[in-house]
């Protein structure tokens, strides 16, 4: 069997007393899109910084195609950072030329690659415009284009849709979908459950620096067992809602409660049977339940089930 494109083994990184990444291990096969799903501060960016060679791990190993990461093998990786890592006073074309040359691309091959990636991200018509004249979504797409330029074996996308409008977000997700289908291995970090569900062949759930679960969507759903998510919409004060949440968390079968004013989601075994006692408890706290919804299980529910908190907490 061929070596995985990326093999991460027991990666650890500490900042002072804080362990940002704690013995994280996973691998990505050729053509696979792997999602690293977790809330802000979970350790996603620190993990990919170590994979890309920007941070030195305190311990653990990163292997690309079966060999350790060295400076010369960095070209195997295409990094798309969370921030727009482009020169705003240069055009997209000039940015691509600069970063392409740093990746040792030259002449006609560089021109062809630039034309190709501009086409992939839909920026051919605006290639000669300065980046600081772009919209947020266009900047994100140009940011991705630089990561694709040198045809990496592994594309790392760090929360590429943060802060973009829905149309650009959809455009980015479509582009990633196409790349994943083209045989390139993709490591995609996000705290948007729906993106992970839509794009990723496998998902690793990371929280507080630890990879707490990993698998395909179906495999992760099995973690929920018979659990389901019941979402209550309520009217009432914050203190009453908090008190109600505490009571809900203590009810039999409840594995997670999230949400504050107005909307509270509960992951529980046999969720529908929870509705009556939960409504009764709400009323006892002076809350008015105005809506109840039993949702299909999703990765958000898995995360809530595993950690007891929401992805966006």
């Amino acid at each position, binding site marked *: 069997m061929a070596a995985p494109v990326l093999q991460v083994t027991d990666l650890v990184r500490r900042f002072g007393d804080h362990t940002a990444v704690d013995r994280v291990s996973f691998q990505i096969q050729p053509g696979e899109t792997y999602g690293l799903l977790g809330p802000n501060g979970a350790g996603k960016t620190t993990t990919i910084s170590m994979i*890309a060679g*920007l941070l030195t791990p305190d311990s653990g190993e990163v292997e690309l195609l079966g060999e350790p990461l060295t400076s010369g093998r960095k070209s195997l990786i295409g*990094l798309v950072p969370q*921030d727009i890592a482009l*020169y705003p*006073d240069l055009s997209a074309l000039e940015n691509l030329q*600069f*970063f392409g040359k*740093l*990746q040792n691309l030259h002449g006609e091959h560089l021109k062809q690659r630039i034309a190709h990636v501009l086409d992939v991200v839909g920026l051919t018509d605006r290639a000669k415009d300065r980046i600081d004249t772009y919209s947020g979504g266009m900047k994100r797409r140009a940011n991705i284009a630089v990561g694709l330029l040198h045809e990496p074996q592994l594309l790392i996308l760090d929360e590429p849709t943060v802060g973009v409008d829905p149309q650009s977000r959809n455009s980015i997700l479509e582009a990633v979908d196409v790349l994943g289908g083209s045989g390139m291995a993709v490591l995609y970090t996000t705290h948007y459950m729906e993106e992970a569900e839509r794009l990723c062949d496998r998902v690793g759930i990371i929280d507080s620096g630890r990879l707490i679960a990993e698998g395909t969507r179906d495999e992760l759903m099995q973690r929920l067992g018979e659990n389901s998510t019941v979402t209550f919409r309520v009217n009432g004060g914050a203190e009453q809602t908090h008190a109600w949440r505490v009571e809900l968390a203590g009810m039999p079968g409840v594995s997670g409660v999230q949400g504050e004013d107005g909307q509270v989601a509960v992951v529980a075994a046999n969720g529908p049977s929870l509705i009556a006692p939960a409504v009764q408890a709400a009323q006892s706290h002076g809350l008015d339940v105005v809506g109840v919804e039993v949702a299909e299980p999703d990765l958000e529910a898995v995360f809530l089930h595993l950690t007891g908190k929401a992805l966006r907490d």
Partner: protein
Amino acid sequence: MWRHVWLIAANGLRRSLRDRSILIQAIVAPILIAVVVGAAFGSGFSLNVTVGIKDADGSDISEQIAQGLTGAGGDGIAFSSVDADADAALDSGAYDAVIVLPAGLSDAVLSGEPAQLDVVGEAKDPLAQSVAESVAAGIAANLQTARVTAVAATSAGVDAGPAIQRAVTATPPLTVEQGEVTGTFSVMAYFAPGVAMLFLFFIIGNGARSIIEERREGTLPRILAAPVSPASVLLGKTVGVLIVGIVSMTLVWLITWLGFGAYWGDPIGVFLVIVAAVVAIAGISLLITGLARTENQADALTTIIALLFAVAGGTFFYGASGVLSDLRLFTPNGQALAAFVNLAAAQADVVEVLPQILLLTGIGVGCAAVGLVALRNKVLT
């Protein structure tokens, strides 16, 4: 590696050219200020140099030389005899430089042997020392004439006394190899490099700080995610700021020289002093950037140090005395200005400004070494 160094330097240059504020700071402002100050001061500075003549020989010939000189002078240059020791005379502050006619001078002349004159001056006033050296060179030429006359007369068996007297008492032409010491030099040739160096601190400081800015904006991690070594990044940034500095100051020089007639002196000497000054300023800027805790702190420190060096270095006034005159020697601006004045006013050649060139280069390389190590530890690891 060097290809990456050049790519990073070229990228920095391209971005600098897009930034019009740099063009204003680097070229327009120094020339404008020099022109305005030049208009305020008139056509040039008048020198006020007093050269002492110390007669340690005590012979008729040395006495005649001293008497001849004390009657000469004018045009901002005065000569007067010195009774005390040359160093003590210099320390008294009454003299800017002292020419010593050594013991045995007349015997050497009359016997046809070469004579050696000494010039004692202070490094803080290179112009006065240059004037004294040019006078000493003139005396030496007269003595050479007297020596040849003595040898020829002795061979011919005739009395050489009158001819020797004429030669030694002739007023030495105030000349050096490149031309006449005029007693004045262009105000613009003084203020243009001075102001250009002040602005260079800001321009080069911006360039040095761009490495921290690029880390904050994410382009530095992206560069380091490519197969590019941290050393290439640091070298590329350094080469970039050096090129910006050298090009901008060279343009100021050429525009004030060719456009406004402000002659800065021997072109090779001027260019080498420009390069050395830029190296020194770049090194200091890298040191500040490397040691400062934040980008804002580096910015503030650069401003303070640039202004301190400019004031202490004599950027805003010529001919300071006392503490300011002493302080000047401890600033790169002062050292560079001393070299520029020497080149412009005393028509010095590159060899005569070599000490300042080496000192400025040494300051730059030393500061850059410490600054780059600090930057590497702070930004690239």
